[in-house]
């Protein structure tokens, strides 16, 4: 076996959290440097993996296998064109979060960094695992650090939000655990690549699909189980919101692509109307809800639900535009929502208010901030030339091939998206300065410019030149669709 590069990638942050724990020194400087350094090392390592993988192959690469639970479950890791993008997204967002907490986290910095690094381990693990039990392990384990991040460093209603987040997600996931065990007894393995080939009998597929769905729907989050998300976002500290929006939500979309679609193709086809209905409700209803929010974080949280509606819509169109669009949408939403939450965090650190009414007229006093905020707001509403446009456009193209009515309603959501984003910008950035405190605010400092600038560059870069992402995805998505079509045509018979 070659050098276990994926395990290194997964456990590097975990090992560094140990060093953070042991670090000493004033102002937690050494802890911040260790975590920044190790998360950047992880990022570079993931870029190296991205660079050295073979896009032309649909097979899983960098496979690592190790006997684990009683010889019947293997600790199996491996990546393909889809997962590498999420891994790089994770490793990119983590250092940005660490930079953000230099400004925003004031107490127990060391513990905060440890929690973030442990969380990074679990998140990378989710995107690398090729075994259902390994996946479940990482998927669930992420709850522990996130629960603490919300609960310890969160806002006034943090206890309620942390509990809601934890229990909602756990409730969805335990059904998935039953399904995973059932799959083991049906197919004799939990190795994903083997299950792809064995093909689960038709009579089991619907129930198993629903069990997986219960977990992914909560995590996505889909309407009507999305209610934990606004609470969690509002109360979480900035870095927590960023990770939650940028990466944790993507686990479910990734789960649909990696597990639901290829393992239960017939059930996926059967339940497509359900997904479409829920996605459309999510897009339109939560956009309307977002319009009415007075809390900036809550507004962005609801917009996340709407954007994830496009993702689920795109995945279940089963055509190339739809699926590539939804992966692209997930990556781009990962960048944009992260940036928007960071933007809210920046002003929250200064004025300790998330209310839209506190602000107004920022453009005269914080020009750099206002510029970046507008870039991200426009990206969020899907302006051409930003990455937000391409994702939504591809998803809509994909869904037009499948169902006109659904595509039309989804397009209506784009208008609503523009409405709430522009209105938010108008009320926060432009308008009359009513609040005298705003006049004394300082503009972005270096670290804030670094993190927001990187994200802004990426958002615009991928808006004009999405080729690197699409090239990576191409073959894996083709393979996914091929397998799906064969399965549907043969009705699951071998």
């Amino acid at each position, binding site marked *: 076996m070659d050098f276990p590069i994926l395990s290194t990638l997964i456990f590097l942050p975990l090992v560094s959290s140990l060093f953070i724990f042991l670090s000493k020194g004033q102002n937690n400087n050494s802890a911040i440097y260790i975590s920044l350094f190790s998360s950047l090392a992880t990022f570079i390592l993931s870029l190296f993996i991205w660079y050295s993988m073979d896009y032309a192959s649909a097979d899983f690469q960098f496979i690592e296998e190790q*006997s*684990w*639970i*009683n*010889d019947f479950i293997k600790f199996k890791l491996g990546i393909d064109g889809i997962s590498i993008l999420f891994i790089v997204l994770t490793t990119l967002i983590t250092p940005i979060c660490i930079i953000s907490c230099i400004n925003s986290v004031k107490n127990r910095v060391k*513990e905060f960094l440890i929690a973030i690094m442990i969380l990074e381990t679990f998140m990378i693990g989710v995107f690398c695992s090729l075994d259902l*039990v390994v996946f*479940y*392990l*990482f998927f*669930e*384990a992420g*709850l*522990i650090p996130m*629960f*603490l991040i919300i*609960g*310890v460093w969160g806002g006034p209603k*943090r*206890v309620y939000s*942390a*509990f809601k987040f*934890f*229990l909602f997600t*756990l*409730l969805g996931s*335990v*059904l998935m*655990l*039953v399904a995973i*065990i*059932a799959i*083991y*007894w049906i197919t004799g393995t939990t190795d994903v690549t083997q299950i792809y080939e064995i093909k689960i009998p038709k009579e089991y597929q619907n129930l198993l699909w629903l069990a997986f769905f219960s977990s992914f729907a909560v995590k996505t989050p889909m309407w009507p189980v999305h209610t934990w998300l606004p609470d969690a976002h509002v109360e979480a500290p900035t870095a927590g919101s960023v990770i939650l929006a940028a990466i944790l939500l993507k686990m479910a979309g990734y789960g649909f692509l990696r597990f639901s679609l290829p393992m239960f193709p017939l059930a996926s086809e059967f339940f497509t109307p359900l997904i479409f209905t829920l996605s459309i409700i999510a897009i339109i209803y939560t956009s309307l809800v977002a319009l009415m929010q007075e809390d900036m974080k809550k507004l962005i949280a609801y917009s996340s639900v709407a954007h994830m509606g496009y993702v689920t819509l795109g995945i279940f169109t089963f055509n190339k535009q739809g699926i590539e669009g939804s992966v692209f949408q997930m990556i781009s939403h990962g960048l944009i929502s992260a940036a928007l939450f960071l933007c809210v965090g920046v002003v929250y650190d200064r004025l300790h208010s998330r209310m839209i009414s506190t602000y107004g007229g920022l453009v005269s006093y914080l020009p750099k901030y206002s510029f970046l905020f507008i870039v991200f707001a426009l990206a969020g509403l899907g302006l051409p030339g930003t990455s937000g446009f391409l994702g939504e456009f591809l998803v809509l193209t994909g869904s037009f091939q499948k169902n006109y009515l659904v595509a039309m309603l989804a397009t209506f959501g784009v208008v609503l998206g523009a409405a709430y984003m522009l209105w938010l910008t108008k009320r926060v950035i432009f308008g009359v300065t009513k609040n005298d405190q705003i006049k004394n605010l300082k503009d972005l400092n270096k670290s804030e410019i670094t993190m927001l600038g990187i994200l802004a560059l990426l958002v615009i870069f991928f808006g004009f030149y999405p080729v690197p992402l699409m090239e990576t995805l191409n073959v894996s998505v083709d393979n996914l669709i091929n397998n799906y079509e064969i399965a549907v045509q043969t009705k699951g018979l071998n």
Partner: protein
Amino acid sequence: MINNLNILLPEIFLTLSIFSILMIGVFIKNSFNLIFNLTSLIILLTIAIILNSSNNVEKIFLESFTRDSFSNFFKILILVSSLFVLNSSKNFILDRKLAKFEYPIIILLSILGMFFMVSSNDIILFYLGLELQSLSLYILASIDRDNLKSSESGIKYFVLSALSSGLLLYGCSLLYGFTGTTNFDLIAGELAKENTGAVFAMVFILVGLAFKVSAVPFHMWTPDVYEGAPTSITSYFAVVPKVAGLAVLIKFMHIPFSKILVEWQTIIIFLSIASMILGAIAAIGQKNIKRLLAYSSIGHIGYALAGVATGVISGYESAIVYISIYVVMNLGAFSCVYLLKKDGEYKENISDLSGISKKHPILAISFLIILFSLAGIPPLGGFFAKFYVFTAVVEQKMYALAIIGLLTTVISAFYYLKIIKTIYFDDSAISFDNTKNKFAQLSIFISCSILLTFFLYPSVLSNVVDTLFLN
């Protein structure tokens, strides 16, 4: 016959040692420390003797006593957990002035009783072992005899336990009446034929055993006794008799009652579901840590019983894995409770834990690991325990049991989270003394290390357990 006595070597050694240290206690004044240390030594020596003995199946005394890998595994589990309970509670015993020389001796006597329970292959020997254990436990529960609560819990436990022992004995006599034998293997042979009467006997015996492991609806004594008894005794109650009780339960189901599986399976499923649900719901409102751990242990027994309810070897194995990890978690949890000392007084309320993460970060993180593990969140050890059990349950296509079980883990996660909330999210109220309870800290460390690293090589435990049923 005399050549075979080496099979009984651990029991003989234990008995002789108990009598010797009893003599020391009678003739030497203030000998608590001496006897306490000797007890630890005896336990270590007994472990060594058992590790040295062979794992081949040997039956002596008209096949009423078995020594095999099954009994050896449980004996070692009992001894190791008793060793940890005793030593980590030593400071507590001294502080609470419970340092009577009988204390460790009675613990050893109860261990002897459990040895006979797990080794018995005959109803009479089994009952003798059970009674030796129970009588020791009655005394232990009320050892703090000047304390009203402790005496109350002792009496409560005695009355209810005696009742259940009576039912169990009645079941045993019925079983003898209907099958004409007291030997487990012969009973199994008799029950292969149609035997309605024996089903009644089975029900009575099951009730008695369910009482000993505190499965719902025979759990009423548990919260009161856990709360009333001194913490050192509670931790013993929470761990050691549970192990022995589950071992004999599995043994009964596996050997004498293996032929009437359909009849007892329904009962165990009911016990399991009822325990899981009550354990999860009743714990929510608790304010006392010991009471909460009592309900949590009821819930955990429910999960172990779910493994037993499958009625197949893989299910029993999963239950044994479960109870082993349960022992590790509870030893850690109780050792944490020993450290909650303020001005010489031990705190027992959950609200006293408020905000300890600021002043006692290490204790807080240990609590965190143990509580998340009790809740069964991966990647901690408790998750694998549940995973093994539910794998066995789903294998038997008992989907309803699996789903109810996993849903109750969500409910029970709530009250574990509530403690974590108190520790981490609330403002700090009191800071505890810096106790020099080295052994409690050691056992917390061991417990947390096992729970944290279990995911690296989860097979290590189940590989051992897999060998227990080879005979």
